[in-house]
């Protein structure tokens, strides 16, 4: 039986037994190479689920949709390793109860899906341990190396030119499972902390706020990068920040449900005398 069929069968069992009220997975998209998020709540509909190498979107963000988990019922969701790490972060930050999440874990090698064994987030602890420090998706690595080799001024110029394209749609935020705030700082308008204008200042403000708020939280799923309508290589910023927190704090985002957020925890014996 193909992995796809095995997972359909599992999804069907979960729904028929009432163990979960919904399965969030992928189905066919509007073109042969597109997949789209699918929300399945009846056993008959599991046949529309698709699992292959084109299933790349991180679906964990849908779990924090207002009201979805408030009835304490469980939901199953197809997740790659980055998505599983995201569940750890969402649990550590008290955004969901991980016991309500049934994980249909998978990865892909080439275009072929591979199964990951486990169903609760803790079942994947060992797997996540082996991923520490590995970039999940090496897209853009060449550019990343080029940026690292640049002088600060050249790098600044590069990002200035990239940010000048930003149209302030905040698609990067909406697509990110870690950007769950009901009211983002940029949506606060009394006072307006961050300009909504897409001028140089506004674009820098936003992209720097995003970089900091995701430091030590980004799981490098690439949702932001793929959502950006003007093709700013956003994941490279997050990759850089992930590298920094790994080096400075030995922090690999989403390692466990009890991991302390690196930028939002303060200890009396911290060497720093200020909080950012």
């Amino acid at each position, binding site marked *: 039986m193909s992995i796809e069929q095995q997972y359909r069968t599992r999804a069907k069992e979960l729904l028929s037994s009432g163990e979960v009220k919904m399965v969030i997975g992928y189905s066919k998209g*509007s073109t042969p190479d597109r*997949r789209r998020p699918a929300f399945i709540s009846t056993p008959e509909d599991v046949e529309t689920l698709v699992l292959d190498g084109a299933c790349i979107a991180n679906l964990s963000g849908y779990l924090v949709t207002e009201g979805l988990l408030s009835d304490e019922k469980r939901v199953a969701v197809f997740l790659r390793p980055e998505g599983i790490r995201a569940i750890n972060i969402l649990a550590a930050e008290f955004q969901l109860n991980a016991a309500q999440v049934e994980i249909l874990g998978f990865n892909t090698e080439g275009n072929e899906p591979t199964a990951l064994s486990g169903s609760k987030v803790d079942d994947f602890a060992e797997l996540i341990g082996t991923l520490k420090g590995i970039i999940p998706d090496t897209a853009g690595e060449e550019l990343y190396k080029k940026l690292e080799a640049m002088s600060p001024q050249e790098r600044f110029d590069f990002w200035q030119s990239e940010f000048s394209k930003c*149209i*302030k*749609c905040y698609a990067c935020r*909406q697509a990110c499972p870690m950007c769950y705030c009901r009211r983002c700082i940029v949506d606060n308008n009394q006072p307006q902390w961050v300009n909504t*204008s*897409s001028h140089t200042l506004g674009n820098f403000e936003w992209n720097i706020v995003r970089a900091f708020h995701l430091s030590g939280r980004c799981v490098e799923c690439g949702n932001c990068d793929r*959502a950006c309508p*003007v093709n700013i290589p956003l994941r490279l910023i997050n990759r850089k920040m992930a590298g920094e927190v790994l080096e400075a704090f030995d922090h690999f985002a989403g390692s466990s449900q009890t991991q302390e957020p690196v930028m939002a925890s303060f200890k009396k014996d911290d060497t720093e005398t200020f909080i950012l």
Partner: protein
Amino acid sequence: MTKILYTDKLDNCVERWRSAGLSVIGPVRNANITAYRPVGSAADLELSQILPDRSIKELFFPQTEPMMRYSIKKDAINTEECLPPVGPRIIFGARPCDASGLAIDDPLFGWDYKDEYWFNRRNETVIVSIACTKSDEFCMCTSLKLSPDSTKGSDVLLRPLESGKGWQVEELTDRGREAFKAIAELLTEGAEAAAPTAVVAEKFDADACSEWLRNPENFESRFWKEISVRCIGCGSCTYLCPTCHCFDIQDEGDTFTGIRRKNWDSCSFALFTMHTSGHNPRSTQSARWRQRIMHKFNYFPGKFSANSCSGCGRCTRQCPVDMGITETLQEISKLSQ
């Protein structure tokens, strides 16, 4: 016999227009994205892409623009109006769906108050469109009663020659004729055939959709939730859309001095209709998606007799979760049968 503009003359045309005081704008590829931008020579133009990634509306209605500067002193409040920069421009290589998008929005920006930010620019811009000979699976102009060679909103329409070496020239308006006078001697009279335009299949029946939308019973239909459950409210469909026109007015500055700006806004955002009280009449993403469809295919045609969509397909092409106008209207077409 028709007038023909050969590609190898294009550089001279750009030069002529520039020396006649026009700034020349066209599709330019830069940093992985194609947008309408000023060009220095014909070599800067990217005319082979099906259509630019970013729409033409930014040239008339930019993401952000100053409306007023203010300063408040002890005994006086000073305000200074900012008007858009002026100067004649020519846009070379617009796509017919982009040009029609502008014509669709004209009545909106002019029905009660003539928006000078829009019209000052409209009145100084010549639009030279190129008929499409290529399309992709997302193009849907024909479902909106337009076509790959529609002339709506254009001052001149160019039809690519079969040989690929130039274009047949069809001057449509006085403004277009005036701009082409400056390059008259670079044009040739000829009988070369034009390449066939792209074949864009009709995807839905827009009239039937509008009728379904007008039926008040369908406002609360379960359909809205089902069709939009995956929408993440990212707004890129509205920001890339040539006809979406919503904006917000923001003051940037401090208590004493600042600038009032007009910035894009989007019905996909939760904040769009949030009241000061905290109540939000469009509290769910499905209500926001319904608004987008209702506005484009019910309210807008009710007021201005045209759908607020030119069928460019950008909303579907770019959507991170594979939604878009097309699928919704295809489903509504089915429901209305």
